[in-house]
């Protein structure tokens, strides 16, 4: 006895919950948003200081290179954690209302995604001051953003299921994220990674998204068509996998909440 949900209901629910999540994340105010920006900006400030003045990094646009990396990584961190909590965090609702639960996880992630847009505006302001030329090439960043969203949603869906059974998954994921921060080319460019290891680096889809975003928006590094398609493809794959895992285990997890 599974009732299918009407598509327009699904969409309405998704939009309303996304908006509510966004609102709560940013405490419903402009100042709230400024606070949330503080964390990535502080990290950026420290790293920029260390790399420019201590390690004497002189690459052109290093500032933008670093900022974009941190903004995208910060989204990845926040959204996967938000997605992980999308299921257990709404346990009251799940146990009392019959609704498509996948929406709860997707809306949690989408709330963070709206935050990313604001952060990208901040990045754009930095970029203008730093004298980056506007170029048609930049439009290719949009599919990458979509890929990032799909990737994060796929991961978030799987995590949201795991965390029901394994409540300390949050701590485990924190360790992953910490390792990920250093194993992903965020503060260093892909070109600094030895040729032999680059293949391994690209197994991490975030690495590709970061590297190509930097090329498209800042003009540092390069891009291959195969690599670009690979990044989009793998993200879609992770998303589909996440949906499949969620659908498979959803009913069982509802009883375990």
């Amino acid at each position, binding site marked *: *006895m*599974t*009732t299918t949900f009407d598509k*327009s*209901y699904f969409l*309405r*629910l998704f939009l*309303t*919950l996304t908006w*509510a999540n966004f*609102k*709560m994340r940013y405490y419903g105010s402009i100042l709230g948003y400024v606070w949330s920006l503080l964390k990535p900006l502080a990290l950026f400030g420290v790293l920029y200081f260390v790399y420019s003045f201590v390690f004497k990094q002189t690459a052109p646009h290093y500032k933008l290179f670093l900022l974009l990396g941190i903004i995208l990584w910060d989204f990845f961190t926040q959204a996967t954690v938000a997605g992980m909590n999308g299921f257990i965090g709404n346990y*009251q*609702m*799940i*146990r*009392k*209302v*019959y*609704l498509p639960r996948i929406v709860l996880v997707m809306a949690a992630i989408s709330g963070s995604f709206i935050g990313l847009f604001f952060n990208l505006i901040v990045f754009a302001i930095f970029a203008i001051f730093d004298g980056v030329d506007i170029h048609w090439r930049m439009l290719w960043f949009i599919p990458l953003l979509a890929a990032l969203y799909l990737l994060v949603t796929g991961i978030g869906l799987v995590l949201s299921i795991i965390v029901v*059974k*394994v*409540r*300390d*998954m949050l701590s*485990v994921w924190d360790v992953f994220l910490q390792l990920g921060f250093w194993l992903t080319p965020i503060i260093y460019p892909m070109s600094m990674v030895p040729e032999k290891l680059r293949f391994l680096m690209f197994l991490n889809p975030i690495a590709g998204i970061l590297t190509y975003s930097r090329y498209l928006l800042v003009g540092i590094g390069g891009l291959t068509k195969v690599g670009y398609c690979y990044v989009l493809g793998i993200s879609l794959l992770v998303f589909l996998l996440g949906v499949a895992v969620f659908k498979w285990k959803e*009913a069982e997890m*509802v*009883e375990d909440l």
Partner: protein
Amino acid sequence: MQPAITVKNLSKTFRLPAERRGTLRERLMKVHRRNDKMPKRTLDNISFEIQQGEFFGIIGRNGSGKSTLLKILAGIYQPDKGSHIEIHGRIAPMLELGVGFNPELTGRENVYLSATILGLTRVEIDARYDEIIRFAELENFMELQVKHYSSGMAVRLAFAVAMQVDAPIMLLDEVLAVGDFVFQEKCFAYFEECKRKGKTLILVTHNPEAMMRFGDRALMIHESKVEIVGLPQEVLKVYQQAQKA
């Protein structure tokens, strides 16, 4: 006329581990010890029918399985294999008042959130918004966060929103357990209206008054099984005897 809900041989078994190992740490530390799952039958071979337009009460002691039954009807839990449930007409998705309310959001935002979960569109909510707040008597508090509401205010708002649902079948779990006398009277007035509109209402309650006044028929669950289905007075009699025993 076909029945609104037909339930045949409905069973529900939860598989509960002997010991809860909720964290990775616990799992790793006890990986060498077995953790058998014990089946627990919460509902055992339940069968009944609810006619369209009927006001159907479900009673039973705590832990007898009545809320599980309601959750299965709503689609929240999946029944065991071999169970047979047929439902004609849309069921309102909510079992309790105020679910989906978020204390951090304002009253106004919660109305939109909650009503959306219940299936209303934005246009519909816009049109009924004034009516909702008038009914809840919260005209001056809609921009206040719900966490600053008294529990009575929150319940009034939740009820005002829930009343807007226009599904032919309503499932209500212990709605009368919250709120004061005035609130109960409002609930009763709402039940009257539902009856007039010909809605099917299924109510889990401990409140004998509501059952006697509105119930067409009632079902008592005792230790996971159907004890009796019949007229409210008969069912209540059995229920009260069981209470004493």
